[in-house]
């Protein structure tokens, strides 16, 4: 609800309890999800993942020779992740091209989220590059990127033990909810917890949080994510199946 209190100032009136989500979803309901595999022809593997208005492309190149050479590992291949928002993708000002502190950190935690499922033991001195690009964003970009990257790695035929699914849970006022959109994410009395989970083992490979939360609520958040990740896994699986269907 928006009220004009003073001339020229628009102030959001914060209800003490979050009755209904801004976009009308149930508290444990994700935004609509779509996924595709193999959409970038030149890449060795690729994935596309859309959740609500957040859209992520991921492409995998490799295993290929690692440059610069000093970063090579003779014992196993290296996983390298590059996360990038397209300059026109954000709801506010243009995002200046090139790496920022934020995108570097997200690249780093995304790499850690994917690393436990890939087996690069056979690829000494090689690198597997994962490029994540976001043409349109509405919160949850690192999770969408991870979901797309997981599809891309599988599509590229990189040996994997499991799929990685990721979604954010959080709190707005007094309600726990899953898959925050931008309006909820930027709510002043809100908490955002992106979590990446391995599908079979239910292990967590990424967790971050900002905001104040009780440990009981954190448990609730993890439970919500578990349920949501099962749904995400199905969509990822279908996308991969569809690409490898005979006739495609």
């Amino acid at each position, binding site marked *: 609800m928006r009220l004009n209190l003073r001339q*020229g100032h628009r102030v959001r009136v914060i209800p003490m309890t979050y009755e209904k989500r801004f976009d009308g979803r149930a508290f444990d309901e994700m935004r609509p999800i779509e996924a595709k595999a193999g959409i*970038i*022809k*030149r*890449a060795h593997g*690729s994935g596309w993942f859309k959740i609500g*208005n957040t*859209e992520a*492309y*991921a*492409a995998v*190149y490799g295993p*290929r020779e690692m440059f610069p050479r000093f970063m090579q590992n003779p014992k196993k291949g290296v996983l390298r992740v*590059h996360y*990038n928002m*397209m*300059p*026109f*993708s*954000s*709801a*506010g*000002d*243009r995002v200046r*091209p*090139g*790496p920022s502190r934020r995108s570097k950190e997200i690249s780093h935690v995304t790499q850690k989220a994917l690393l436990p499922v890939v087996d690069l033991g056979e690829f000494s001195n090689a690198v597997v*590059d994962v*490029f*994540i*690009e976001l*043409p*349109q*964003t*509405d919160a949850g970009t690192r999770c969408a990127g991870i979901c797309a990257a997981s599809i891309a790695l599988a599509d590229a035929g990189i040996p994997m033990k499991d799929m990685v699914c990721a979604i954010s849970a959080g709190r707005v006022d007094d309600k726990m909810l899953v898959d925050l959109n931008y309006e909820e994410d930027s709510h002043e009395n809100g908490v955002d917890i992106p979590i990446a989970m391995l599908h079979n083992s239910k292990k967590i490979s990424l967790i971050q949080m900002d905001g104040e939360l009780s440990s009981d609520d954190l448990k609730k958040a993890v439970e919500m994510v578990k349920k949501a990740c099962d749904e995400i896994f199905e969509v990822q699986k279908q996308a991969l199946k569809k690409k490898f269907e005979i006739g495609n």
Partner: protein
Amino acid sequence: MYEELRNQVISLLSKQARLDGRKPHEYREIKIETGVSKNAEGSAKVKIGDTEVIAGVKLEVMKPYPDTPDNGSMMVNVELCPMSSPEFETGPPDIFAIELARITDRAIRESKTLDTKKLCITPGEKVWMVVIDVCTLNDAGNLYDAIYLAAMAAMKDAVFPAFDGEKLDYKNKTKEKLPLSRVPVSVTVFKYGDHILVDPMNEEEKAFDARLTVGVLENGNLCSLQKGGDTAVVADDIFRMVDLAKQKSQELRKHL
């Protein structure tokens, strides 16, 4: 290094054929979709065969340049995303990306299609800046024309965000379009030996002798030129390439 490939392309061209079975002057299928990124003021995705690029327009309010106090301005930036080719690397734009951006910028700017006077809000203080970013998704050849088409389609799709004189409200889009008066089209022609072709695929792009990008207006006049490639060409070759570009521009303009 690509001598053999070049010979192969030339021997095919002498039989009016191409590596992928097309005729020399034939484009692959072109698809343009607008409104593909909701947060941009305008956006477009262009496919030429398997080549795919996405462009977005952001509108900003800025102080005008001192020498043009009552004109807004525009800028084209090209990001060769490393996801779209094994040959593209991360890091600041290289010379290929810069040339692509400047070729696109020049065709739009020199056609004077964008009325920069109408982008003035308060002379000497506030003007609109049109920033066009083009990101590549898949490079299967001829990024030149794909990037141009995406930039132009995104500009045609763009609407102004609400501006109350103080603050920009990107959430609130008006219905007002950019002040565009004409539709210039940019066509790139490639030369191999005595033959010319349009819309090269990756392999063909490795082995060309010369390249000419031509900006063409509706009335057939030219608004920009850029030659590339390592060999010099005779004037008659330039005229031939311009003629082909003019002919092909009519076909491309139908998609905009």
